């Protein structure tokens, strides 16, 4: 019936999950706008976006709770678009965990197998395995209201994994946990995924979570994917301003292209008050408007003017600074009035004089650190 | 495998089924009766079984007459009855508010354990037969009843006062019966209210009474509106209270409708009376539903 046992075999097929032109309209509101995507078997794929971007609707369409307005969904080569949730080889871990309050931990975890009418003995042994996996052996007879947040999360995970789904959908899996627990659980989740080799699709609004967990990330906004790529690609080479802003902090300089040779462009930026250089493989012509974007940690800060000729160098004063222990954040005001954010590791303890408010400083970066954003 | 066929049908169509069953019931037993009232209200009374002219005569022509409504509008008795029903219901509502507000306030500010008990004691009479609770007042307000006996024993009066069969008795009955309906929504809003707000107002220089009118009252208004409507709407069509406690001249609309139907057997006129009563209630009912919709929105 459900055929939820993971079939072995060709693991590298990039089309294990294929979404084609998927849209969902609620009356006049377009929640998901013609999205296409392929996910390989065994990936830990994150859909990242702010609230209302359509990520949860997309997940609910994968689970079968929402019927797509247009488009198809294929899982392992089978078109599941018209299948109800109870016939899909997919299970979901809900944001609220949705643990049945009137059942014990054990019967919560075993619910899915009971619905498949598996023999009692097999249900028993598989529930034991799951309890082992999520380390809840001692809690099997507890009711959900006697569990901590972290334990509830693990019950939800075990319950969703016990049917060995082809795909596990996780809706904000860590949002309800406090910060300490979240970090720990993150790694536990990755370890479990690695062991079971089940494809995970995680929906999250937390960019740090997406960065650490995922093999790939899709950044979503207004029902569309802005960028799909590995965490590194998305962070280092954001394809547009939205992605750059959404993931981490970034400084941008509005500029006009004045020259372009061998993948190196030269731009003129009123905000920077000088010419800047950057590398790009995008087709860009002189006269185009672009933004030059720089992560705060890619910028060096010093009190003397650095002398590397290739680098870009700008002069400013320390407008504001914040000490965070392992690193410090500076807001540098250029002579043009533009504020640039710079972060620096606090490697030494006190050998050097720390920068103070209104100190005159130089900021510099290597041209390959700059990202060219076309809008 | 008929059983699985049935199950399959239910699983496929469960949404349609849970809508269809109650929907059909309501269409037949709630909406259809209104259509019939409307139809009969424009019929002529005849001495027959049932005692009104059919909607279509033998030749299939529609028979409708506004006679019943014109009669209602021109006959002074009915105008007075409607007016009296509205004013009595409104006055009883104000009385309920005056008594109920301080009570709801007191309950909402009591400690948790006491509060539950007090609340229970408000709800309890609701579960006891309405009729018997009205009846209890007959024993109290009788000429030889508890109140008169007590006052005579005290020496306040030496002749029994006429308490029953006057508007006074109807007011007592209405306030007594509908007070819980006022207190419960008031309590719900007052209990939700943050006490720090009043303290903040007083901290900023408001006296307790000023703080009440500046903070407590405006915040309690949704509860006040809901409570007033919950009292006013049923009070206006009340039948038992005016019948048992009011005098024969206490012509309130519920009683007139009842008599028109059962005593005079004028079904068309009774239907017209009902429709006019319903029209009177449309505005308060819509207000109530809107306030309840807002309340469920807040709760979710």
């Amino acid at each position, binding site marked *: 019936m459900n055929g939820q046992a993971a079939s072995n075999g060709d693991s590298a097929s990039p089309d294990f999950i294929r979404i084609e032109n998927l849209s969902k309209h609620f009356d006049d509101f377009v929640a998901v706008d013609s999205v296409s995507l392929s996910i390989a078997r065994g990936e830990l794929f994150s859909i990242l976006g702010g609230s209302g971007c359509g990520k949860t609707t997309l997940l609910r369409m994968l689970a079968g709770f929402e019927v797509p307005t247009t488009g198809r969904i294929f899982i392992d080569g089978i078109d599941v678009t018209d299948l109800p949730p109870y016939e899909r080889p997919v299970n979901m871990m*809900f944001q*609220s965990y949705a643990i049945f309050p009137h059942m014990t931990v054990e019967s919560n975890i075993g619910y899915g197998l009971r619905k498949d009418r598996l023999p009692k003995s097999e249900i028993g042994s598989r529930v034991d395995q799951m309890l082992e996996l999520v380390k809840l052996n001692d809690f099997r007879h507890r009711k959900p209201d006697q569990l901590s947040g972290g334990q509830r999360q693990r019950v939800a995970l075990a319950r969703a994994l016990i049917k060995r789904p082809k795909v596990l959908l996780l809706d904000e899996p860590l949002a309800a946990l406090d910060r300490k627990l979240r970090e720990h659980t993150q790694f536990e989740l990755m370890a479990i995924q690695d062991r079971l080799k089940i494809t995970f699709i995680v929906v999250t609004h937390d960019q740090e979570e997406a960065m650490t967990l995922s093999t790939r990330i899709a950044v979503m906004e207004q029902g569309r994917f802005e960028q799909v790529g590995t965490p590194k690609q998305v962070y280092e080479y954001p394809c547009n301003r939205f992605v750059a802003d959404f993931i981490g902090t970034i400084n941008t300089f509005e500029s006009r292209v004045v020259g372009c040779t061998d993948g190196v462009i030269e731009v003129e930026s009123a905000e920077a008050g000088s010419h800047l250089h950057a590398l790009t493989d995008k087709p860009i012509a002189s006269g185009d408007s672009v933004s030059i974007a720089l992560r705060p940690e890619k910028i060096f800060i010093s009190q003397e003017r650095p002398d590397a000729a290739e680098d870009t160098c700008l002069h400013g004063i320390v407008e504001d600074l914040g000490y965070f222990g392992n690193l410090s954040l500076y807001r540098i005001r250029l002579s043009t009035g533009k504020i640039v954010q710079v972060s620096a590791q606090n490697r030494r303890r006190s050998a050097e004089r720390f920068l103070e408010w209104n100190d005159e400083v130089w900021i510099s970066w290597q041209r390959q650190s700059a990202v060219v954003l076309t809008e | 495998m008929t059983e699985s066929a049935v199950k399959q049908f239910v699983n496929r169509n469960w*949404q349609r089924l849970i809508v269809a*069953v109650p929907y059909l019931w309501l269409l037949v037993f709630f909406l259809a*009766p209104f259509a019939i009232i409307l139809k009969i209200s424009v019929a002529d009374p005849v001495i027959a079984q049932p005692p009104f002219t059919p909607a279509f005569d033998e030749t299939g022509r529609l028979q409708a007459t506004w006679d019943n409504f014109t009669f209602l509008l021109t006959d002074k008795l009915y105008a007075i009855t409607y007016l009296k029903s509205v004013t009595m219901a409104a006055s009883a509502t104000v009385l309920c508010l005056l008594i109920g507000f301080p009570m709801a306030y007191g309950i909402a500010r009591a400690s948790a354990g006491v509060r539950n008990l007090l609340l229970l004691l408000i709800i309890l009479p609701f579960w006891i037969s309405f009729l*018997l609770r009205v009846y209890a007042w007959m024993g109290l307000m009788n000429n030889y009843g508890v109140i008169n006996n007590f006052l005579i024993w005290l020496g306040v009066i030496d002749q029994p006062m006429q308490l029953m069969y006057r508007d006074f008795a109807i007011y007592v009955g209405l306030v007594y019966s509908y*007070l819980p309906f006022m207190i419960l929504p008031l309590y719900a809003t007052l209990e939700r209210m943050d006490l720090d707000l009043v303290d903040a107002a007083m901290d900023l220089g408001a006296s307790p009474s000023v703080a009440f009118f500046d903070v407590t009252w405006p915040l309690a208004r949704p509860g006040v509106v809901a409570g007033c409507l919950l009292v006013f709407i049923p009070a206006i069509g009340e039948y038992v209270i005016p019948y048992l406690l009011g005098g024969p001249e206490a012509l309130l609309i519920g009683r007139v*409708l009842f008599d028109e*139907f059962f005593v005079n057997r004028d079904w068309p006129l*009774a239907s017209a009376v009902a429709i006019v009563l319903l029209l009177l209630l449309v505005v308060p009912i819509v207000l109530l539903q809107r306030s309840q919709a807002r309340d469920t929105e807040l709760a979710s």
Partner: protein
Amino acid sequence: MKRRSAFVLSALAFGYAFLYVPLASVIFYSFNDSRLATVWGGFSTRWYGELWGNDQVLDAAFLSLRIAVTSATLATVLGTLAGLALVRVTRFRGRTLFSAMITSPLVMPEVITGLSLLLLFVSLQQLVGWPAQRGFSTITIAHTTFSMAYVAVVVRSRLAAMDQSLEEAAMDLGGRPLRVLVDITLPLIYPAMLAGWLLAFTLSLDDLVIASFVSGPGSNTLPMYIFSKVKLGVTPDINALASLVILFVSAGVLLAWLVTRRGPGQPGRT
């Protein structure tokens, strides 16, 4: 605890006295030996005994109970379905009409509900010959129609407070809709259904006006019997009957209160 003003305290004292003195006086006078209900003639329980020998009262009470149990059960089924429809089926044709119809009986004057249903039954009898006689069935239908609205409201608020992903999770794990209803939804809304049933039961036992309209000759419910007696004034046997009702109901409500207060927390509050 916040300090409460003397005004609020005296309002509470007055209010509760207002609510409970009449009930207390009924109970007190039910033990009055005198036939004149308000003149004290010594302690006696004879009116309770007479009540037991009164066939009219017993018949009426039995009819009322039958109607109350049947209509409360029907109303719970229909009202629960209606509550589910309102919360879980977000869009269907005629939804506005449906939600208006389901809540209207709550605010409809009893005289109108009674009159309209009687006219329906008369018309039906003319058209299809049913109901041939008015009595148990017509009163039950009438009570079901207005009390299902109360059940629907109670169930609806319970469902709205319940996390919908519980049902989705069950469906996601392979539960078909009917199974999910039985496994998850009903166990979780069961307290609301029970409360709704009790409410419907009480409303049915309590109703005079609607039953007076839709009943036929020979079928008197308990309120109809009491009404016909009290129209003529205060009588000691009605005092006894009223006392029994007051004591039973109070005991039931207090018991329910104690049980729910002591018992384990309600499930599904997340």
